[in-house]
């Protein structure tokens, strides 16, 4: 009996010794891969410094840190607002494999950083790799993402041109139900910003045809009617927007505010000030 206990103890101690040798002294590649995965997980729980230290140690010790690995470690840093780290990693990833990374990089710069010029650089480069194909970045048609950049930079005519191309691209081989209601909505917003209220209302209506609960489309449609001195129609649409948003209907995202996202307090304030 004692003999068996000795054997078990010896085996256990040997395993512990080998593990210590591997993960404390030798530290093979797998150790650093696990290390950066744990670092990323620590960041998820808000331990920014500890997480990034583990990630950086892994990067230094792994001879080849790939573009996809740089991309991966950038994500949590973007989500936590560690912009210096996220951009450092994304720049490295995009330098190594622009074909793989530029689409995501452009998209994340657009939505999470609101850095439109840099976003366009990466989106245009990504688009140039497949000139005959309209890529998707995130959930967006790349032409739509580029249009949003121009719209937010105030270049409305260029934005309209790209929104039109995006609509045309989406309709290739599909019917209208394929189109995201946001595409019509953002074209409407651009027309609205150009002072073309009637055309904007047409596109807010197109949005509502695709998603009848778009409180943002009703809200801006209401504003457009008010600007056209049609207070009655304006008021009706603002009220529809308010009813919808109170029921929780609006276009939003868990991570970032969307462009022209509307809020209940905003609609209420507009109605109260009429």
């Amino acid at each position: 009996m004692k003999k068996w206990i000795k054997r078990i103890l010896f085996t256990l101690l040997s395993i512990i010794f080998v593990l210590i040798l591997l993960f404390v002294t030798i530290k093979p590649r797998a150790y650093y891969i696990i290390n950066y995965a744990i670092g990323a997980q620590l960041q998820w729980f808000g331990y920014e410094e500890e997480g990034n230290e583990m990630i950086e140690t892994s990067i230094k010790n792994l001879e080849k840190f790939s573009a996809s690995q740089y991309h991966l470690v950038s994500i949590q840093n973007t989500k936590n607002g560690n912009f210096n780290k996220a951009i450092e990693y994304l720049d490295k990833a995009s330098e190594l494999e622009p074909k793989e990374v530029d689409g995501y990089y452009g998209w994340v710069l657009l939505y999470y950083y609101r850095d439109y010029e840099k976003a366009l650089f990466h989106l245009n480069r990504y688009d140039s790799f497949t000139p005959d194909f309209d890529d998707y970045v995130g959930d967006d048609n790349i032409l739509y993402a580029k249009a949003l950049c121009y719209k937010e930079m105030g270049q409305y005519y260029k934005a309209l041109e790209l929104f039109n191309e995006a609509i045309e691209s989406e309709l290739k081989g599909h019917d209208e139900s394929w189109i995201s209601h946001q595409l019509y909505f953002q074209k409407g917003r651009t027309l609205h910003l150009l002072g073309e209220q009637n055309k904007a209302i047409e596109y807010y209506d197109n949005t509502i045809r695709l998603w009848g609960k778009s409180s943002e489309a009703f809200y801006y449609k209401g504003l457009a009617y008010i600007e056209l001195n049609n207070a009655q129609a304006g008021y009706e649409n603002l009220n529809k927007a308010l009813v919808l948003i109170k029921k929780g209907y609006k276009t939003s995202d868990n991570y970032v505010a969307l462009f022209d996202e509307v809020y209940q307090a905003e609609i209420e304030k507009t109605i109260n000030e009429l």
Partner: protein
Amino acid sequence: MELCGLGILKPYYFTGLEYNGGMYAIKEKYINEYIPVKNGINSGIVKIRFDINCKGEAGNYEFETYNLKYEPTTLNDSIVNQTISIAKELDNWIPGTNDENENINSFKFIAIKISNGDIKEILPK
């Protein structure tokens, strides 16, 4: 501010932490209270990170400043002090919840993008 339970934090986008009035209310507060700064290094990003406990109380504020190329830098003190003070006055947080719909601790950040002393953008939501 004391964190609830064991003090475990989860990210705002996971717990569904919200500010009453959303980003609209946060922006309104900054628009109404921030005074543009026209001297010193006055373009960059102030990132303010903080925790919100299960009661909706905020605390443990930390900040970092970046230039518009996302490199760590220092910004005019007035910009940093104002943006942090306003963040600390945000007192209408709706705590995040877990799968059992119990209120839990969250961590959150606000990044204020400043160009020539004026607020250009407040991120993320």
